[in-house]
């Protein structure tokens, strides 16, 4: 119902409808950017090396992984692609995913004062942290392009596929991110679990090595990890390694949709108690 003053009537009661929530989410969309911008502005005001950090972290990890897997363990690269490039292309989506996941899961606790003092759709808080992770990803992608230039590697035409792949990574992080940040509010000791997940996941993904060294009979099992498809996709798009990983990417897409559904339902379900328990 519309009122003379131009506002719709708002009814607040236990278990109010979903429809209003999505309308509010749209109405508060500007806040998403403001929150992301705040995170960003604060981070780069507080640390001396600022943006450089987003580039430095993957570079150093790349150096270590190349040393361990290629130089020490003697694992082969894919075709004639330089080993460091292959590692870096795998790390790009992984860092995006893991930093989006960890910061999203911490986000509500970190913004407890907001949650208990003002109303807005809480979904914006974890969503904003994913936007910040996306900016870091952009910086790292720039480093990747510089590296390719340095190694005299020409990007193939399918490099444009990086954008939809990055979007898929963000979506894949969103579902578990929502569930984890809701769990973090309810269970205060849960925050110690998340860094472990991020650490452990790194070893399950083909980051320091090429997925071509995985034996054929384990391939499907290996691809059940939704990040495998994305990492293979990135290597295909940036360096032209292998064929388009259709099967594993389909698994990633399916997992992303499923996880968002579950994460969103869980988040929405616990959201009404956030202000009471935070």
């Amino acid at each position, binding site marked *: 119902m519309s009122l003379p*003053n131009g506002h719709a009537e*708002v009814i607040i009661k*236990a278990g109010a409808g979903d429809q209003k929530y999505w309308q509010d989410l749209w109405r508060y969309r500007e806040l998403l950017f403001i929150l992301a911008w705040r995170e960003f*502005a*604060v981070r780069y005001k507080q640390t001396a090396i600022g943006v450089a950090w987003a580039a430095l972290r993957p570079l150093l990890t790349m150096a270590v992984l190349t040393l361990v897997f290629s130089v020490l363990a003697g694992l082969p690269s894919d075709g004639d692609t330089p080993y460091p490039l292959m590692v870096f292309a795998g790390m790009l989506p992984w860092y995006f995913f893991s930093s989006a996941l960890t910061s999203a899961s911490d986000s509500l606790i970190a913004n407890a004062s907001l949650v208990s003092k003002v*109303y807005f759709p809480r979904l914006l808080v974890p969503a904003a942290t994913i936007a910040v992770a996306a900016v870091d990803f952009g910086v790292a992608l720039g480093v990747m392009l510089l590296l390719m230039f340095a190694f005299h590697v020409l990007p193939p035409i399918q490099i444009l596929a990086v954008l939809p792949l990055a979007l898929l990574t963000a979506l894949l992080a969103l579902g578990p991110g929502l569930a984890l940040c809701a769990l973090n509010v309810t*269970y*205060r*000791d849960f925050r110690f679990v998340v860094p472990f997940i991020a650490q452990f996941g790194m070893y399950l993904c083909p980051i320091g090595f090429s997925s071509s060294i995985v034996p054929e009979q384990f391939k499907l099992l290996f691809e059940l990890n939704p990040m495998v498809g994305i990492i293979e996709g990135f290597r295909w798009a940036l360096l032209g390694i292998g064929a388009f990983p259709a099967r594993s990417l389909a698994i990633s897409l399916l997992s992303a949709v499923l996880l968002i559904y579950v994460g969103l339902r869980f988040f929405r379900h616990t959201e009404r108690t956030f202000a009471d328990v935070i």
Partner: protein
Amino acid sequence: MLPIISIRDLGKKYRIRHQSDTPYRTLKEDLAQLPRRIFRGKTDEIVEEYWALKEVSLEIEQGDRVGIIGRNGAGKSTLLKLLSQITEPSKGSIILRGRVASLLEVGTGFHPELTGRENVFLNGAILGMSRGEVKRKFDEIVAFAAIERFLDTPVKRYSSGMYVRLAFAVAAHLESEVLVIDEVLSVGDAEFQKKCLGKVEGVSRQEGRTILFVSHNMNAIQTLCNRAVRLEGGSVARDTTDIRLATHDYLGFGAARFATWRNPAPSSSKLPVVPLGLHLHTNDDQVAPAIVTNDEPLWVVVDIELKALDPALTFGYALHTEDGQLLYCSYQTDCREVDWPRLSKGTLRLKTPLPRRLLNEGNYRLEFMSRFHGRQWLTPPGSGPTMCFSVQGGLCDSPLWQERRPGILAPVLPWYLATVESP
């Protein structure tokens, strides 16, 4: 016209956890409880339900300036949180027929590293303003806060006064039909408080904005509001346009025959010093009636149970007028250390004279307070037990001064003829 806010049978239930040490649930605990939950179908955790608000029904018309008063825990803040949609009601409903802007805390979302300018945009967005709206009002906001020179300084370098001014300025410029304000004006200096109240009153009178205002400051309620709702134990105890009446019974006048307070459940307190009673005694150690004259010698008597001795333990009382203005505080440690009363564990009674012929005619509220000096409050101001009394008559022996004089105090002071040496 329909009321701008209709509240029907509103209730909010909280669960209080007794078993654990932390207020938060932990996964460890829940996992440990899991086998018991499966096999016995219950846990040994005692969850107590507590209705912070129950059966509240109110209709608020456009342009109403409603003061919401009540003791700590009466449900004021819960009501505001429900109105601001921060938390959901457990029962009942609220119908809002206009945009609600709420100011439950000064500077929500302010980040110390960001500059004043950046924080205005940030805070505006958090409070629900669009970028355009903030831009349009930016100059006005900055002028109101009077911080032009420090716009590009990080707010961590602001004085607390500047911080509050800026934060309030943003909220006060929100375009909304309803403005919900919690006790936020208590920070900031008196002059700024006046300015804020003036601004709030202005927007209400000129633009017909509806205001819901929570405060412990009865003066502010009396100046600003044209309607008062007193909450008690989560329900509406009084809803009236007679502000004086509401503030009066909030302060606890009228009912009592004797100036006394006794702790109904002393054993439930975990404090190292438990207030047992608070009385006003006459010179012959009888409890004074609730109405006393200004000239009789009276004693403030404090009964406490002391469970642990601590050299920093300080307790005493604060005396307030009926408007909620603090007159003075007095503590047992207000003299040289050798003269402090020597305390021992157990039940103690201490007494201190109430100054004669200092107060004016009127109603007073005496509140017990205690703390570890320099460390922490045990019974912080505003939360302690209180005792009320009125002063009537006995103002002075002069035939010329018979009734209440203007002014907060009415001391009787001696006058002497001083000899002046002629030049």
